[in-house]
């Protein structure tokens, strides 16, 4: 049966527990939220609060969850089918762990094209490398011959190359310098505009999350405790005390303010 709503992603009481018995540790606790098709949704929260764990359950890397995950109105099986990955791709938090060390960039990008039966391999590979700002020469490099930011761009290219409709992005720009970050964020915005992509983005950078996402879930200890709009975050208009403290601390610290702001009286 298909839901009548426009929700592309939905979780119902999603829970993830690591370990068993006395050492069991529930790190995601009955989380229910939804993302409408074409929406960009952000997840923020302290380190260790369960953000990456939610993404791993959504993308099917962790099949041992409780509750339900719905995609496009239908519950997905715990073990995802190939067709699911055609639609949903993920960019991992750690660009070092996510690329196979013995595969050159060309192979990394070719594989998903083969698996999902795409044509025009060379054209697509060139186009996607261009889009993430890597020259053609990078094609023949191994991951260990790339800097951190270059690896992350390969990981983003691999996710984009099969033209998915949903991207799960775990700190996609935290390994990037600010100029490349700007290019990638502009690219993400453009793709969403042109292809109606749907995003779920985890980041600890409030300026990044409000730049990309319209709606943001505030997490604390495995739960989404409230949802805010980008404007509400900017104005610190939160309902829960925890959120207010978290936002104020993030913004209040000099380190999160723009430097130019301190000299330019804006």
């Amino acid at each position, binding site marked *: 049966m298909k839901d009548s709503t426009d929700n592309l992603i939905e979780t119902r009481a999603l829970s993830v527990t*690591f370990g068993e018995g006395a*050492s069991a*540790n529930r790190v995601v606790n009955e989380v229910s939220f939804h993302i409408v098709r074409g929406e960009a949704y952000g997840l*923020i*929260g*302290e*380190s*260790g609060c369960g953000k*990456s764990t939610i993404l791993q359950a959504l993308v099917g890397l962790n099949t041992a969850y409780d509750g339900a995950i719905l995609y496009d109105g239908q519950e997905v099986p715990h073990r995802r089918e190939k067709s699911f990955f055609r639609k949903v791709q993920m960019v991992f*938090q*750690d660009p*070092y*762990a996510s690329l196979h060390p013995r595969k050159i960039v060309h192979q990394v990008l070719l594989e998903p094209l083969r698996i999902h039966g795409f044509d025009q391999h060379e054209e697509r590979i060139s186009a996607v490398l261009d889009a993430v700002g890597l020259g053609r020469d990078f094609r023949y490099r191994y991951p*260990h*011959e*790339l*800097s*951190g*930011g*270059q690896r992350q*761009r390969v990981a983003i290219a691999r996710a984009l190359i099969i033209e998915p409709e949903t991207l799960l992005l775990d*700190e996609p720009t*935290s*390994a*990037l*310098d*600010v*100029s*490349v*970050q*700007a*290019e990638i*964020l*502009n690219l993400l*915005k453009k793709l969403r505009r042109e292809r109606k992509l749907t995003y779920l983005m985890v980041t*600890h950078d*409030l*300026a*990044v999350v*409000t*730049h990309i996402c319209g709606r943001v879930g505030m997490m604390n200890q495995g739960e989404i405790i409230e949802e805010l709009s*980008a404007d509400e*975050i*900017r104005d610190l208009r939160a309902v829960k005390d925890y959120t207010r403290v*978290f936002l104020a*601390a*993030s*913004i209040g*610290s*000099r*380190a*999160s*303010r*723009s*430097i*130019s*702001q*301190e*000299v330019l009286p*804006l």
Partner: protein
Amino acid sequence: MDRPLIAIEDLRIRFPGAHRSNDAVRGISFTIGREKVGIVGESGSGKSLTGRAILKLTPNSARITARRMEFDGIDLLSASERQMRSIRGNRISMILQDPKFSLNPLMRVGNQIIEAYRLHHRVDVGEAKRRALAMLEAVHIREPERVFRQFPHEVSGGMGQRIMIAMMLIPEPDLIIADEPTSALDVTVRRQVLSILDELLTRRGTGLMFISHDLNLVADFCDRVLVMYAGRIMEDIPARDLHKAQHPYTRALLDSLPRLDHPVDELKIPSRDPAWLLEDTADEGAVA
């Protein structure tokens, strides 16, 4: 004050290739004293390689030359592998950009910290464990007892970074090279961790080479900042003056940041001027 901890002149790092060589670092000179020096700049500009070159941890294929490369008066270029091992173990600590890779994947986090601790301090296992737990607490890890029993793949991104920070402080080194040590931390935790780091650095007079892409953070935390672009240093300025930076590349970096208080539809992207590659010294093979 006396001689700097690190003195580097005209450092070059090249990857020779069959078709064309890749000049990753192209003649940079700088010093680091008992101070906090931030290194920022474009992805691929040679920040990590420069840090690794000081410890002679660059890939085998890299060709390194320099007119001078010294640590506390020791000539690193001619230092033997044995000398380097002792420097790495005792006098310079490095946090690599890929924190979890530097931990042993098959060993519980706690045992690794205990082992590292006992390598540098004459204490029994019980005492080492107590100190190790205290260190995890110091970097604001909740439930350190639980994290102690976890394997590296079981900790979150931000926890991995904090474990690395705790480990690198163990030998009480003279210099710390930290490559993006806090990129996975939320602002609150980051500030707490940095203030602990700052306190320890100040107390022991430790030097810090802080590689980061976070301009605001570096301006705030460091004393001096080097701005790199395409294997060169564009600018070497006091951190408090970063917002007044003159170099167009540094300005462009500052302008490309998204801002909470000033939403824009599209972020500015620096236009790169080929002249930046040619500046000052005659530079053979600069444009590969």
